[in-house]
C-alpha cells in the first residue's frame, strides 16, 4: 500500500527532516509511527499525502509513484486517503453534518447519497445525535470523532492520522484508537503517528520508530 525507497526530505536551509527512509506497509496493515517531536513523523505523513515532495528517493502509494502525480492530480490522490489531524481541522461555521459531508460535496455526490453516507459515518463514530450541532459545542474527543468521520466518508483504503490523541485524556485516546482498529479490521490500511508510547505499547500493532529523521525500528535496509 505504501512503499518508501531511500526517501530523504531536506528543507531549504539544509535541515534534513528525513534521511534514506525505506519501509513497506502492506495493504490492510495497521502501524504506529513513533518518535520524539521533530523526529520527522509529520513530514513522513505529508509525503504520503503530497503536502510535501521528497528531495530524494521514491514514494509509492496505491501502486502509484507519487513523483508522477502532477499538481493538478493531487486532489484526486488525496481523495483516496483519509487524513486525521491533531487539531481536527474542522470548519467551525458549519454543522457537524456539513463538516462530515464536505468530501462528498467536493466529489460531487448527490444530496440523497451524501445524507445517507454522512449518517452512516456519524453512526460509526457515535455522533449521530449531534449532526445538527456546531463543532465548537463538542468536546475535544467528539471533535476528533467528527474529524475521523470526515476522513472515512469517502471509504478510503488508507487512513493517516497525525497525533490523533494528542490533546485527549488516556480514556478518550483509547476510544479513538479503538475506532481506528475497527476500520483496520475491515481492511483499511492505517498509519498513525503518535508519541503516546504508553498507549501504543498496549496495542499489538507494528511500530515504525523515527529518530532524527532515520528509521531505527520497523524499516527495511
Amino acid at each position: 500500500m505504501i512503499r518508501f525507497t531511500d526517501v530523504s526530505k531536506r528543507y531549504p536551509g539544509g535541515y534534513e527532516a528525513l534521511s534514506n527512509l525505506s519501509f513497506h506497509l502492506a495493504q490492510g496493515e495497521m502501524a504506529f509511527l513513533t518518535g520524539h517531536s521533530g523526529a520527522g513523523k509529520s513530514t513522513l505523513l505529508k509525503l504520503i499525502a503530497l503536502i510535501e515532495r521528497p528531495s530524494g528517493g521514491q514514494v509509492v502509494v496505491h501502486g502509484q509513484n507519487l513523483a508522477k502525480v502532477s499538481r493538478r492530480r493531487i486532489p484526486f490522490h488525496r481523495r483516496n486517503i483519509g487524513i486525521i489531524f491533531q487539531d481536527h481541522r474542522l470548519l467551525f461555521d458549519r454543522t457537524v453534518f456539513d463538516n462530515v459531508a464536505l468530501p462528498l460535496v467536493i466529489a460531487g455526490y448527490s444530496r440523497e447519497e451524501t445524507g445517507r453516507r454522512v449518517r452512516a459515518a456519524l453512526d460509526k463514530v457515535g455522533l449521530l445525535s449531534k449532526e445538527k450541532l456546531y463543532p465548537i459545542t463538542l468536546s475535544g474527543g467528539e471533535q476528533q470523532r467528527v474529524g475521523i468521520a470526515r476522513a472515512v466518508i469517502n471509504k478510503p483504503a488508507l487512513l493517516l492520522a497525525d497525533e490523533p490523541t494528542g490533546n485527549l485524556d488516556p480514556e478518550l485516546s483509547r476510544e479513538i484508537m479503538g475506532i481506528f482498529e475497527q476500520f483496520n479490521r475491515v481492511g483499511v490500511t492505517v498509519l498513525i503517528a503518535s508519541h503516546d508510547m504508553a498507549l501504543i505499547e498496549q496495542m499489538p500493532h507494528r511500530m515504525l520508530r523515527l529518530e532524527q529523521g532515520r528509521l531505527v525500528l520497523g524499516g527495511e535496509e
Partner: protein
Amino acid sequence: MIGHNRTVREQHEGGGRGASVRRRGASGGPGNYLARHLQTFFYALGQLSLKPFSTLMMVAVIGIALAMPAGLHVLLRNVQQVLGGWDSAAQLSLFLHHQTGEAEALALAAQLRQRQGIGSVEYISSMQAMAEFQRHSGFGEALSALEENPLPPVLVVYPAIELQGPELLAQLRQELSAEQAVEIAQLDMQWVKRLYALMDIGQRGVWVLAAMFALGVLLVVGNTIRLAIQNRRDEIIIIKLIGGTDAFIRRPFLYTGFWYGLLGGVVALILIELALWLLSGPVNQLALLYSSEFRLARSDLLTAASLLGGGLLLGLCGSWLAVGRHLRAIEPT
C-alpha cells in the same frame, strides 16, 4: 463505542456495493455538474445576504462607479437630441445681385420653396433691409444721407427639419450659391461645427471615464475577493487537504464577484433613473420656455443591458484576477 464494530464491518464489507454506489453517486454527468454550479451560484448569493451591510456598501460603490459614465452617456444623448433641433434652426442668407427686381426675387423664392431640403423662404427687399438696419444700427441719420440704398435684396432660407448635420447644410449652401440671381450665399456654420466638436469631446470623455471607472470596479472587486480569500484561508486549506480541486475552491469566489457586478449594475441603473427623474421637472420647464416638445429621454434598453452585462463581466473578471493570483499561494503545510 460498543456496538459500532458491527456497523463498521457492514459498511466496509459491502465494498463491492459501496464502490458501485460511489460510481453512481459521483458520476458527474452534465446534469449533476450543472446542479453543483447552480448550488454554488445561489450559495454565493446566500453568503452575501448574510452580511447585508458590507454587501450593500460594496454594491453601492460598484453601482456609483458604473453610473458615472453611463449617466453621462445618457445625458449626452439627450443633448444630442436637443442639438438635432437646433441644426434645423440654422439659416442661409442669400444676398441677391443689386439689380435683381422684386418679381424676380419672389419667383426665385417660390422656386426654392419647391426644392427638397428647404423648409421656408423669406424675402427681404433692399428697402425693408434698409429700414431694419436704420432701426437697429443707430446709424439712422447717416444712412438717410446716402443717395442710393447700398443693401441688396435678401432671401432667408430655412432648411427643412430633416436636413441635419453640418455637411448637408454646407452642401445646400453650395447648391444655392450656384443660382444665377444669388451673389453670396452665407451660412453661419461656425457655431454648429464648434458644438459638434464639443459633443465629440464629450463622447470621448465618456469613454475615457468609463475605462477608468471600469478599472476601478475591477480593482475594488479584486481586492474584496482577495480579502474574502484571506478570511477563508483555513477553510481553503482544509478543502485542499481533503481533495478539493482548484476549480471547486475557485467557484464560490467567482460567483461572489458575479453577484457583486450584477447587483452593482442594477444599482447603477436605479441611480441613473433616479437622476433623470430628478432632472426631468426642471428640464420640462425649460423646454416649455422654449416652447419645445423636448422631454428627457430615459436610459434605453441597450444602455440598461450593457450596464448589467458590463457590471457582471467586470465583477467576474475582478474576482478571476484575485482568485488567480491568491488561491495558488494558499497550500497546506
